[in-house]
C-alpha cells in the first residue's frame, strides 16, 4: 500500500563554494510516513534538509513539495509550499525576545484572521499538545533545552502543516527527555497523520520511529542505503551501514590494522 509521494528529491547536488557536499541525491517520501535522513557527522544531512525547505538553492537538481518544484517556482507558489511545512530547527530557533506563547502565536497571527482571544486559546491548545501549557509566558531562555524543543515543535505545528521537518529533535537531551520527544513525534504522526522528515543520528530514535530512511555518507557524498532500519542493520551489503546501525567504531579497527606495522618500525 504505497501512497503517492508528498516530497520528491530529484538528482539534487549540493555544493558550497565549489566544495561538493552531496552528489546526485534522489529519493521520495510518501504521505504520512516517518522518514529519516541519517548519517555520520558532516555527511550533509542538515544541508540536505535546508535545501528541502528552500533555505538554500541547490547547485543542480530539484525538490518537489506536492507538485511544486520549490527550487525554481514563482515566489507565490513557494510561499504556498512553505505553508505545507513546519520546521523544528536543531537549536529550536525560538525568537529569543518573545515568550513561548508569542512564538507559537506568531505564524497564527500572520496567516489567519482569527480574533486575538481565539488565537490565545489556540496557542494554549498547541502548547498543551506538547505539555507546555503552563509556560505560555516564559521566555525561551527561562526553560530547559527539552522544553525549548517541545515549544519549537508546537510552533512548527501551529498551522497544521502536512509535513514536519525535524532537525535532530533529540540531540543534546538526556535519554528520558529524548524518549519523550520521540514519543511525542510518534503520537503526532499517528493522531494527525503528519508526514515527518527527521534528520538524526540517534540510533534509539532511528529504531523507535523510522519506517524508512536514507543514509548519507561523507566520503562518497551519496545515499549509501535506503530502507527500513532493522532490515539495513542485518541485511545491508555495505559494512559501513551495518557498522553505523550496530554502533561500532571505525577508528579502532583501522588503528589495530596499522598498529602492527608501526610497531615493527619503531621497536
Amino acid at each position, binding site marked *: 500500500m504505497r501512497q503517492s509521494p508528498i516530497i520528491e528529491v530529484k538528482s539534487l547536488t549540493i555544493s558550497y563554494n565549489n566544495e561538493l557536499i552531496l552528489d546526485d541525491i534522489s529519493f521520495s517520501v510518501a504521505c504520512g510516513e516517518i522518514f529519516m535522513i541519517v548519517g555520520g557527522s558532516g555527511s550533509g544531512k542538515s544541508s540536505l534538509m*535546508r535545501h528541502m*525547505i*528552500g*533555505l538554500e538553492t541547490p547547485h543542480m537538481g530539484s525538490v518537489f513539495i506536492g507538485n511544486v518544484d520549490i527550487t525554481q517556482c514563482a515566489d507565490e507558489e513557494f*510561499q504556498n509550499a*512553505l*505553508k505545507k*511545512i*513546519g*520546521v523544528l*530547527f*536543531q*537549536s529550536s*530557533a*525560538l*525568537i*529569543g*525576545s518573545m515568550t513561548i506563547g508569542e512564538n507559537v502565536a*506568531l*505564524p497564527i497571527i*500572520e*496567516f489567519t484572521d482569527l480574533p486575538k482571544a481565539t488565537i490565545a486559546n489556540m496557542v494554549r491548545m498547541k502548547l498543551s499538545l506538547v505539555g507546555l501549557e503552563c509556560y505560555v509566558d516564559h521566555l525561551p531562555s527561562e526553560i530547559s533545552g527539552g522544553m525549548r524543543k517541545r515549544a*519549537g515543535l508546537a*510552533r512548527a505545528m501551529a498551522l497544521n502543516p502536512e509535513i514536519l*521537518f525535524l532537525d535532530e529533535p533529540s540531540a543534546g537531551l538526556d535519554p528520558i527527555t529524548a524518549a519523550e520527544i520521540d514519543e511525542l513525534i510518534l503520537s503526532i504522526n499517528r493522531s494527525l497523520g503528519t508526514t515527518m522528515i527527521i534528520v538524526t543520528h540517534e540510533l534509539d530514535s532511528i529504531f523507535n520511529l523510522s519506517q524508512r530512511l536514507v543514509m548519507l555518507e561523507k566520503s562518497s557524498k551519496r545515499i549509501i542505503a535506503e530502507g527500513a532500519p532493522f532490515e539495513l542493520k542485518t541485511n545491508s551489503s555495505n559494512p559501513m551501514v551495518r557498522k553505523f546501525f550496530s554502533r561500532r567504531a571505525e577508528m579502532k579497527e583501522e*588503528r589495530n590494522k596499522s*598498529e602492527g606495522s*608501526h*610497531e615493527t*618500525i*619503531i*621497536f
Partner: protein
Amino acid sequence: MDTPIHTCDYKISANNGGGYTVRLGGNLSIETASESLKRLYSELKKASPPFYFDLTDIAVLDDYGALVLFELKHHLKISESDFHIVNPPETYKKTLSLVNFDFNARCSVTFGQPKNNIIVEFGAATIEALSNVKFMVSFIGAITLSLKNVLKRPKSLRGQDTINYMKATGVDALPVVALISFLLGLIIAFMSSLQLKQFGANIYVASLVAMAMVSELGPIMTAIVVAGRTGSAYAAEIATMKISEEIDALFSMGFNPTLFLVIPRLVAAIITIPLLTVFANFFGIAGGLLIGIAMLDLTAGAYITQTIDTLTIFELCWGLMKSLVFAILISVVGCLKGFQAQGGASAVGHAATAAVVNSIFLIILFDSVFAVIRSYIG
C-alpha cells in the same frame, strides 16, 4: 611506598660499533618533557646517528615522554633505520603504541591553512569583495521591495516592534545626546569667544554656535552617538538571530525576514534620528547661551534674537535632511552586518564592531559629499 620521581636523567655513551646510546632513566612525562627535550636536543646535536634510546631505567613514561623521543627524531633528522628504542618497560609498551609517530604521513591535509601566493590571495579577496557587493545590492533590493510592500499595505509593518525600536533608538538615547550636544555648544561658544572677544564681536558667538550646531554638528554628533548605541545593537541582535537559526525559522514559517526585522528598525531610525537631531540642536544652542550669559555679558534675549536671525528654514531643513540620510545609513548598515554574520559567538561581536565602524565612516563620507553639494548650491 616509593617516593615518586620527578626528574629525568640520562647518560649518553658512544657505542663501539658507531652511534650513540642514550640511557634514559627516571621520569619522562608531562612534568619533565620540556626540560628533557631541550637538554637532550642540545647534547645530541653534535652526536651522529644511529641512536639507541635505552628505556630500561624509565620509571614513569607517558605520551609527552614519547613525544620527546618523537621530536628528537624529527629535529635531529634521524632516519627510520637509525632510530631505535631499546628495551621499553612492559608497562609502557602500551603507551608507546598509542602514540602514532607517523600521523604526519597519514594526513593528506596539511596542518593549518595552506599558504597561498600573493596572486591567489589577491584573487580570493577580490572574489570576496565582489560577493559582498552582490549581497549588499540584493539586501538593498530586498529592503526596497519590503518598503514598497509596506506602503501598499501599511498593516504589514510590525507596529509594536517599531514602537519598541523607536523607544530604544530615540527616547533612551535622548539623555546622552542632550548632554553631549550641550557640552559641545558650551565648547564651541567658549573657543570662538576667545577669538571673537578680541574684535568685540561677542554677539556673533550666538551665530556661530547656531550655524555650527544646526547644519553640521547636531546631525553628525547625533548620528555618531546613535551609530554607537543603536547601529551596534541592530547588528548584534540580528547576528544573534542569524547564528541561532531564528532567521531561518522565520523564513520557513513564511515570513519575510527583511520585512520582519529590517523595516521596523529602519522606520524607527528614520523617525527618531531627525527628532533627536532637533533636540541636539536645541541643547547645543542652550550650551552656547550659558557661555554667552556667564562669560560674555550677553543677555539671553539678545543671544536668542541673534540665533533666530542667523538661522533660516533652509538651514534647519538641510540639517534634518542630512540626519535622515544618516538614519538610513545607520540602520541599513547595522542590519546588513547582522545578516552577514556567520559562525559562532565571535560573529556577533564582529558584526557589532563592523556596523559601528562602517556607519561612522559612511556618515563622515556622506557629510563631506553634502558639504560639496552645499558649496555648489550656495
